[in-house]
């Protein structure tokens, strides 16, 4: 499917068959077959939906990137290779995901370290307004993408052990049951650090993502709706403070409400995105036949607008559906497993993927103010792709181990 789309895109753009179509198709197929064999070999009991859906998104995203820029396509192809290698490595290294529980504090420190890394002078640098980049030698990457995984593992581990205490213990003040401070502290600390860092790094999207992850995991672990209410309240408060403290937050908000008044400035991107969607209509202009390069940052944050323009409502809906199915499979994995840690981890990982995709899609579609995060599996960017494939590897590993415990596959 990806191969066919790639050919179409090249035809639409250059009216000739892409010269490297043979090697491209073969290497792509080999890559996907490798991933598939990896799953069959190391996690045969895994949900059969996750990998195909992810590779579908990856493929459409890759074709769109290739259509936007040949140079980026080459880089993205290299990252794809690394990502699939990491995916298989996760499957090989983690026959029992539950073992990760033992290293939860390691992951806490690793997560915090990765999150802080861009703030270290000489290593970290800013790009596009956010200080989320790290440069080591010739490689630039966004450690935050990996920090998410680490922190999800820590939260899942910690909460799976402390959930009883958190949901029952503690004093009652004014009729509200408060958890014990002693057990609650590390979680608050982890969350506080990452939020503070996010604000310092001016990465609103990731900040929102972390916060959601934290609240959702607390909610699921304790089964107490109060955490959602509490979290929602904290979010409103945080948003209010951020709105008053940061000019760029106010800008984002104003553009969301009325991008037209700032057409020649900060509203240009979102307006061009809307024009792109409108141009696409039901069936799209066809790959390579639209004009998505008018949208700034179309290769990463706004890749969904390019899909809407060239593949139309049908293509964009397919992408939305793929994300919904991945979320469904991820949560089904969480429900099927009886191990509390695995359950929470599966919820956490699915939340990261689903909410991150929602944040950027909602931003591009003007459902929410725009905050720049990548669209998992689709946007251009190595760190994001590798981290998301590792995330997928973890989900598949959980899916497999629960299937094994349910004796659906041989031990």
């Amino acid at each position: 499917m990806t191969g066919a789309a790639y050919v179409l895109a090249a035809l639409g753009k250059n009216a000739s068959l892409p010269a490297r179509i043979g090697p491209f198709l073969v290497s792509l197929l080999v890559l996907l077959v490798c991933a598939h064999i990896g799953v069959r070999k190391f996690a045969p009991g895994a949900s059969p939906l996750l990998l195909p859906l992810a590779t579908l998104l990856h493929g459409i995203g890759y074709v769109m990137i290739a259509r936007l820029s040949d140079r980026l396509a080459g880089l993205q192809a290299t990252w794809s290779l690394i990502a699939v290698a990491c995916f298989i490595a996760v499957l090989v290294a983690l026959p029992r995901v539950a073992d990760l529980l033992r290293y939860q504090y390691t992951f806490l420190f690793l997560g915090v370290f990765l999150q802080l890394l861009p703030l270290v002078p000489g290593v970290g640098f800013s790009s596009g307004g956010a200080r989320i980049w790290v440069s080591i030698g010739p490689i630039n990457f966004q450690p935050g993408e990996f920090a998410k995984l680490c922190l999800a593992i820590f939260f899942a581990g910690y909460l799976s052990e402390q959930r009883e205490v958190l949901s029952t213990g503690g004093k009652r003040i004014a009729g509200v049951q408060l958890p014990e401070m002693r057990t609650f502290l590390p979680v608050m600390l982890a969350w506080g650090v990452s939020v503070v860092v996010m604000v310092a790094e001016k990465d609103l999207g990731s900040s929102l993502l972390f916060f959601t992850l934290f609240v959702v995991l607390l909610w699921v672990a304790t089964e107490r709706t109060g955490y959602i209410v509490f979290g929602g309240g904290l979010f409103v408060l945080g948003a209010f403070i951020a709105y008053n403290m940061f000019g760029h937050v106010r800008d984002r908000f104003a553009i969301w409400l009325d991008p037209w008044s700032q057409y020649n400035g900060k509203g240009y991107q979102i307006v061009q995105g809307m024009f792109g969607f409108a141009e696409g209509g039901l069936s799209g202009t066809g790959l390579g036949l639209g004009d998505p390069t008018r949208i700034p940052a179309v290769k990463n944050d706004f890749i969904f607008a390019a899909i809407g323009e060239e593949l139309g409502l049908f293509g964009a809906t397919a992408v939305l559906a793929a994300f919904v199915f991945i979320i469904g499979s991820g949560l089904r994995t969480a429900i099927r497993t009886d191990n509390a840690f695995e359950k929470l981890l599966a919820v956490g990982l699915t939340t990261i993927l689903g909410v991150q995709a929602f944040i950027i899609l909602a931003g591009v579609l003007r459902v929410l103010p725009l905050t720049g995060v990548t669209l998992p599996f689709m946007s251009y960017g190595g760190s994001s792709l590798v981290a998301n494939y590792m995330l997928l590897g973890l989900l598949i590993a959980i899916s497999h181990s629960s299937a094994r415990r349910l004796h659906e596959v041989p031990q």
Partner: protein
Amino acid sequence: MNRVIRRLAIGLLACYALLFVQLNVWQVGKRAELRANPLNNRESVRQFDAPRGPIVTSDGVVIAHTVELANNTRDASGYTYQREYPTKELFANVSGYYTYAYGATQVEHLYSDVLAGTTAKQQLLAVGSTFNNVDQTGEVQLTLNSELQKLAQRQLGTREGSAVVLDTRTGAVLAMYSNPTYDPNTVAVHNNDDAGAALEALADAPGKPLLANAYQERYMPGSTFKVLTTATGLEAGFISTASEWPDENSWTPPNTKNPIQNYGKKTCGGDMFEVFRRSCNIPFARMSADMGPEVMVNGVEKWGVGEKLPIDLPNAAASTFGGEVADFTDSLALLAIHGFGQGSVQMVPLHMAMVAATVANGGAMMKPYVVAKTLAHNGTELSSTSPEVWRQPISPATAATLNTFMVGVAKEGTAKCCLALAGGIQAAAKTGTAQLNAPGKTQRSHAWITAFAPAEAPRVAVAVMLKGVNAQISAGTGGTLAGPVAKVLLDRALKVVPQ
């Protein structure tokens, strides 16, 4: 925990349902509105930034074409295709320019559909190859000859003015150049601000370089207009080859005290052949006053004076006799002055070439045209111009008489100095020196000639007009200044147009 996870699933599903709704709003609900938004120029840019066929001269020289920037690259303005004019200013007045923000002019404007490949015929030809994305662009082939055009440019040199060469039998324009002109490459730049600045500078420049002076401007014709006056007299039966005019150096028309004089205050008279050859003013003044406003005005209108010239280019000018019948009824003096091409008579240079061509063509005035044919990308002919008679201002007999008069001008008259064609071919001509200022002021005059050749079997006609913008031009006459230009052009044109 599973209960909560299911709730979470429902929550996330609701979020994505919201996205789907909003996606529908943009892609379906508000689609038309967004596409029609004036800020949204995707549609117009896509139409503009596309392949476009060439404009080619009759001898195969490309005067306008579109080049694609290196694969996948765009210039600073975000375009992939650039319109270029390899001959620079040489054909600017015919090709025109093609811009995004300021539209297109001349052939670029009139034949835009053919060049872009969007005519119904071209679309039909492309059906069946929808998936190969074939080049649908069309080609426009001109009647103009690049060598002749270059010659016109070189002959005018730094002098302001126009030169037009026609095929007398078809009306095909072989060359049409005017100075000053402009380089369309400076206007066809993609940066809208730069293009606007270039156009503004050209609009303010002296000599109106943006206007194709040869067919979009009109000038006092001087004695070249006597061809029309003589033709009117012959057609109306007021004069004949036998008409005689007294030798005189001054004549005062009825109801006025201001006398009319000949050029250079000379004494001048004789038979019709003689006064035409020497271009005496008084006989033509008398002739016009005798014929009266109605005959005179009707006579020149038969030549299309007062009507927009029917050339296949936009915004052609119309020549003017400078008044209606009623304007001359009480002022025969004015009519007399207009009769020899002074006063407010104004002729378009192209029109003057058409006058000579009409005499050459036995009285049939052909529609001038610059586009010979249009071709689809695969070479299929889309259209071709068939020569058409615009009007028949004079009978073949009158045309034959005028032919002998004009031969006299070339042989032993005002153009004797300068119109001896190569190979002894006989030319026929009428010169003009249009005096722009009233006596007593600094004298400024346009130098005109209108001519055709060979006199016995004409094939080509020419009109040359040098604007009297300085003392150098104004010191000369139509014969001495415009004559040599006409000779060079006729010599070359006779080689271009076969017998």
